[in-house]
């Protein structure tokens, strides 16, 4: 991005333009038309040069930002799957990366839920066996038990404890797997940060493009039109309605926004105020 914000050349160009204009007037006053044409040609060339330079700068800036994005993510082990390793269309790949984020989060959620599905019956079974054993113990305490009954109870208790050990191992293993499944957050977080970085770089570049375009208009003598503003205002309403129907997506800064509900309680309050 270096040098993109440097408009010093443009300032120089404006000074040159002013200087040359005076020179041009002097030459015209003297009737030196050949000299005047020469000045005009020089100005035209300087203008073209300026245009090329500004557009070139912008292109280079965009390219750098995009290239940086590509290389950094390429270095992470999570994304070695890129085909043939040659230079790929980076912006198009931002989509691919986001899809990858989607895939990772989906896998992690499924793994977690699979483990919960497997673990719940284990915990339930342990609880059920404990309940049965407790009844046996209660019975023994309440009545006169024979030695063989006591021995039976001992064996049942031993096998119960064995089950507990086994169940605890299973649960431990499953919990670890759930823990590991959360690792997606690391990778997806990084990928998303890269994409955010790319987007804001592109945004900055676009803002600068607008600035450069303004200067370019100045150089080429065009005036920008305000007429299109009216049309965009009309569209805004349609877009707002479309957003409302289609949905805005998850809201950030729920606590500080007044047009957004912070939690379920506020939803309930709003609905009950509407007679629900």
């Amino acid at each position, binding site marked *: 991005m270096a040098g993109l914000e440097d408009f010093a050349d443009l300032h120089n160009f404006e000074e040159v333009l002013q200087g040359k204009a005076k020179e041009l007037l002097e030459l015209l006053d003297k009737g030196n038309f050949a000299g005047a044409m020469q000045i005009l040609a020089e100005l035209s060339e300087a203008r073209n040069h300026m245009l090329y330079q500004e557009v070139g700068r912008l292109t280079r800036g965009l390219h750098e930002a995009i290239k940086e994005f590509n290389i950094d993510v390429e270095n992470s082990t999570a994304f070695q799957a890129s085909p043939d390793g040659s230079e790929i269309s980076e912006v198009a790949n931002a989509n691919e990366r986001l899809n990858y984020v989607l895939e990772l*989060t*989906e896998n992690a*959620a*499924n793994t977690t*839920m699979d483990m919960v599905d497997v673990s719940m019956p284990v915990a339930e079974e342990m609880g059920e066996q404990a309940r049965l054993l407790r009844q046996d113990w209660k019975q023994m305490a309440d009545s006169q038990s024979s030695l063989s009954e006591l021995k039976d109870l001992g064996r049942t208790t031993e096998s119960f404890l064995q089950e507990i050990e086994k169940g605890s191992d299973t649960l431990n293993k499953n919990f670890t797997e759930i823990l590991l499944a959360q690792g997606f957050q690391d990778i997806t977080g990084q990928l998303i940060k890269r994409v955010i970085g790319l987007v804001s770089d592109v945004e900055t570049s676009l803002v600068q493009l607008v600035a450069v375009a303004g200067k370019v208009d100045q150089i080429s003598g065009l005036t920008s039109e305000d007429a299109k503003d009216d049309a965009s205002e009309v569209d805004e309403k349609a877009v707002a309605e479309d957003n*409302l*129907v*289609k*949905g*805005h*997506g*998850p*809201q950030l800064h*729920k606590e500080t926004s007044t*047009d*957004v*509900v912070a*939690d*379920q309680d506020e*939803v309930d309050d*709003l*609905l009950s105020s*509407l007679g*629900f």
Partner: protein
Amino acid sequence: MKILIVDDFSTMRRIIKNLLRDLGFNNTVEADDGSTALPVLKNGGIDFLVTDWNMPGMSGLELLEQVRADPNLCKLPILMVTAEAKREQIIRAAQAGVNGYVVKPFTAAVLKEKIDKIFERVG
């Protein structure tokens, strides 16, 4: 009691399905947006609709409006479970005839409470 769960994220469908199963509702079917949900609803046999709002194709609000406009389906109880949290949206959904509105992220208790309330009213 047959319940249709509509959400474009399969993980969210699974979460809702599991929560419903815990609440004793074992008969669920799924759709990933309004346009796939509507034919399922029109085929009949669905007693309750749980839908997300923001989905590709037909959104949950559009689905809600279509259901209310259909004479065969207009009485179907509908619960919206969505991350859409703008006040104007909740008002819009209420006006369109939603029976309950749950914002994500939600808890199993909230989901149960809203479902109980809907059935209490619908009878």
